[in-house]
């Protein structure tokens, strides 16, 4: 691609585009140079762990256990997973899980299908069969081929266990359990190598590229075709990557990837702990949080993936999906007795976009009342990527918490009084006017016209833009360059595991421009990121042991197995 850029001319691009065999991405410019960022080591999320196990062994393998919670950094768990370890208690969980999964894989119900070979004797070691199974499964679990040394170790473990018990499958089970609780499986370890196109520079090696790509697009480990592409060098070029990326974007599994990203970006991990006062919000039940999340994720994937819609329209769309429980909260009829039903609100309805869904409105409210402050803060931080300072420790919240004070019947009244405290005014000034536009939705997300008998004023403001109600807020977010820029930042951070580094700023700006030029189509943005060289560029931090050992630009590299 750099050759294309060096040669530059428009004629070349046109000529290039005339070649059917070349993808669009292979014809366009690759954008400004990017420095890349250091490699990351990210702990698998619980969902990724479960998906990988299901991918390899099937969905009937039961996974019982709960991992340590992930840590959110810079707005994303995907970045936080780079900075977490495994606690002793968690290790016990992983160990228990690994043993349980391994036992199921080799039990009599599954062994013929999942092991793939039969030992000469069930009571004695069979190195050929053990090697075949462990090599194959190990490649999928480690997301790269096992080294000869690793295979020999795993086979020896299986042999020793077989001899000790007199059961070949127990031997396999023992060795498989070790693979399943290995850091090589539990952590997404990225390995850099010298970049042949950039003297002195580094890039992810092919298997790390495959992993980054797969977790980005599908939220799971690379499949066999992607690992094969890594093995044969297809992922070394944009064109080769484009073939794999296009295959993956065309897969139904793209929805899983998009869901995982928005689950992270929208902070849905906290929905599980959502609590509401049942006396105030009797429609809040144990199942509501899950259904609220599902509604928004269905809305998003339907719009972005199925309909290939404009990201900005997520803030104004009237199309959504409803369960019977959610329909009762939104006060609309539903034909479905269970499950989900597509629904489109009529023109003029205040339900517009994902910020008017329960997943946003209830999550960013208090247990017994709505919160313009929390909602405004969420819009700033989650949708616009803007930092809001934490409140000082000595704030007096008595006025805003007293919803029965007849002097301050509405949230606007209470917040107006609260803002008279100088220490509070600064922050509330930038967040409350956003959230106040959503005051026509109570703390659960149901429509209301009054609070304590007083009519609700739903006027709002975001920076210089003044508007009315949820419809106005949705349109303002739709037209906000900050919202689309935020999405690009977040999706890149999610995919790469780090905040854009200083040397990546121009590349991110370029992505933002291209996102706009592409009609704000998220799959197009994902494609552009996934096939780019920039996505896989690595910088080695000065004075790092790696750098010190790498000599003249030589980075440690996992040996590619032919």
């Amino acid at each position, binding site marked *: 691609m750099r050759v294309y850029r060096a040669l530059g001319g428009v004629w070349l691009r046109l000529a290039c585009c005339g070649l059917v065999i070349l993808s669009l991405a292979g014809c366009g410019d690759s954008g400004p140079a990017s420095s890349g960022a250091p490699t990351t080591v990210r702990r698998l999320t619980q969902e990724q762990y479960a998906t990988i196990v299901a991918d390899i062994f099937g969905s009937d393998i039961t996974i019982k256990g709960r991992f340590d919670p992930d840590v959110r950094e810079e707005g994303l768990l995907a970045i936080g997973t780079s900075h977490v370890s495994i606690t002793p208690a968690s290790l016990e969980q992983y160990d228990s899980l690994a043993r349980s999964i391994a036992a199921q894989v080799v039990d009599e119900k599954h062994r013929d299908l999942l092991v793939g070979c039969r030992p000469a004797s069930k009571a004695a070691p069979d190195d050929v069969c053990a090697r075949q199974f462990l090599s194959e499964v190990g490649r999928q679990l480690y997301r790269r081929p096992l080294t000869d040394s690793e295979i020999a170790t795993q086979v020896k473990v299986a042999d020793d266990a077989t001899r000790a018990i007199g059961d070949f499958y127990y031997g396999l089970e023992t060795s498989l359990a070790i693979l399943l609780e290995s850091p090589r499986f539990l952590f997404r370890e990225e390995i850099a190598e010298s970049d042949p196109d950039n003297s002195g520079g580094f890039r992810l090696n092919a298997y790390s590229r495959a992993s980054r790509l797969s977790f980005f697009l599908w939220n799971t480990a690379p499949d066999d075709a992607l690992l094969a592409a890594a093995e044969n060098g297809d992922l070394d070029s944009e064109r080769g990557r484009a073939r794999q990326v296009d295959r993956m974007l065309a897969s139904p599994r793209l929805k899983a990837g998009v869901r995982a990203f928005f689950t992270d970006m929208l902070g849905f991990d906290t929905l599980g702990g959502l609590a509401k006062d049942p006396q105030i919000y009797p429609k809040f*039940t*144990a199942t509501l949080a899950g259904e609220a999340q599902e509604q928004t994720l269905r809305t998003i994937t339907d719009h972005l993936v199925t309909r290939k819609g404009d990201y900005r329209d997520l803030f104004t769309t009237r199309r959504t999906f409803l369960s019977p429980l959610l329909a*009762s909260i939104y006060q609309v*009829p539903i034909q479905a007795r269970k499950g989900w039903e597509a629904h489109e609100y*009529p023109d*003029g*309805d205040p339900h517009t976009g994902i910020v008017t869904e329960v997943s946003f409105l209830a999550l960013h409210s208090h247990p017994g009342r709505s919160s313009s402050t929390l909602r405004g803060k969420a819009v700033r931080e989650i949708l616009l990527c803007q930092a809001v300072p934490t409140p000082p420790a000595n704030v007096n919240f008595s006025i805003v918490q007293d919803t029965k004070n007849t002097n301050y019947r509405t949230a606007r009244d209470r917040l107006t009084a609260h803002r008279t405290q100088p220490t509070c005014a600064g922050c509330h000034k930038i967040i409350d006017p956003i959230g106040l536009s959503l005051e026509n939705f109570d703390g659960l997300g149901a429509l209301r016209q009054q609070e304590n008998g007083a009519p609700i004023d*739903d006027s709002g403001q975001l920076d210089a833009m003044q508007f009315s109600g949820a419809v106005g807020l949705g349109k303002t977010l739709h037209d906000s360059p900050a919202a689309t820029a935020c999405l690009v930042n977040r999706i890149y951070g999610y995919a790469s595991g780090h905040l854009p580094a200083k040397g990546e700023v121009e590349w991110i700006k370029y992505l933002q421009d291209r996102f706009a030029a592409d009609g704000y189509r998220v799959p197009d943005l994902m494609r552009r990121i996934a096939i780019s060289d920039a996505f896989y560029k690595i910088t080695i931090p000065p004075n790092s042991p790696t750098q010190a050992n790498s000599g003249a630009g030589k980075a440690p590299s996992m040996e590619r197995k032919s």
Partner: protein
Amino acid sequence: MQPIFNLDRIRCLTLAVSAVGIFATAASAAETRGFAISWFQPAYYAGDDDCPAGVSQEIDWKEVFAKEGKTPAEIQALFEHPLSPDFQKAALGRGPHGENVCADPASLPDSSWKTVQGKQAYGANLDGTQDGTATPNSCTHQKFTGIDGTPAVDNQLYRVMGCSKIHRGSKAKDGHDAFGIEYLNERMREGLVTYLIEITGIDDIRNSNNVQVGIYQGADPLVQDGAGGVQADSTMRIAADTRWQATVRGRIKDGVLTTDPVDFNLRGEAVWLPEFHFKRAQLRLEFQPDGSLKGHLSGYQDWASIYWGMAKTGFLLEKFSAGNCPAMYNAFQRMADGDPDAKTGQCTTISSAYGVEAVPAFLIHPAETKGNKTAQAAEPANTVAAR
């Protein structure tokens, strides 16, 4: 700045839905509202002067057995196994010729059943008289004064059952907490039966002088909310069977809905009453600030069905519910005040009242329901959803 939408207007706009859930754009001037009944149980008051002789007690079986001529030793033997078939046979077979008195209650003249002596009860004036004088449609009976002061209230079911031990609730709970009357309500809230109300033609929720009220069996179980109540705003289907559907003219005045008398049937539950057969029944329901309804359904019911509903449990009724089959039967017969038999003059129905609460719901009419006036043939399937 004022809200740019109006919730009531939105509700109007959502009245008509097509089979695929697409909203119609046209909205009629009149509003339709649907409701799911969330509370339904006999309205038995608990006045201080209702039962001066106390409430019913379990029959003195030793006395019964002695009257039957059993020796002390035989009685002692029976009491060694008080739930045995022998005990039950001896207990129920106390008719003059050994008849089972629950199956043949008329065989034993027994006027010992304690009836309500108080002056107040829930209900409505069903016979139109001020003093309970017999009319072509009613038998002579005593009137109550309504709890809210309504004069000449008829509720003879309460008069019969109000001093039954298991039907007598506490004053603190306004009589609602008696096991015998909670039973139906609890089964309903668990999902056994669903009753729906639809009010169409509402011009003004406070005052509309001509509305149509539909009373329907629901096809979907009630949904419980997080606070243990019935979830409002659920979508409920109306059962297709026209036996459980009725419509009646009504009016709303000062936020209170009242209806003309109407006959209708609803499915009940096995223990209390498998089927309700209401005659000349009236609704009086008041709109609450949260959009729900609260009030009473008053009407005549076939008293023999109520008796048989309870008496079918036989020994269980008499042993564990302080019942007395022949005494209760005779009390029903004496107190029955509606629909005198053309030949005997014995009234065949009894006035009653049921407490009713209903939460807003969206109602879906069955696709093809013959005889259903609201879901007309010209409309597409599942046409009308109302809240």
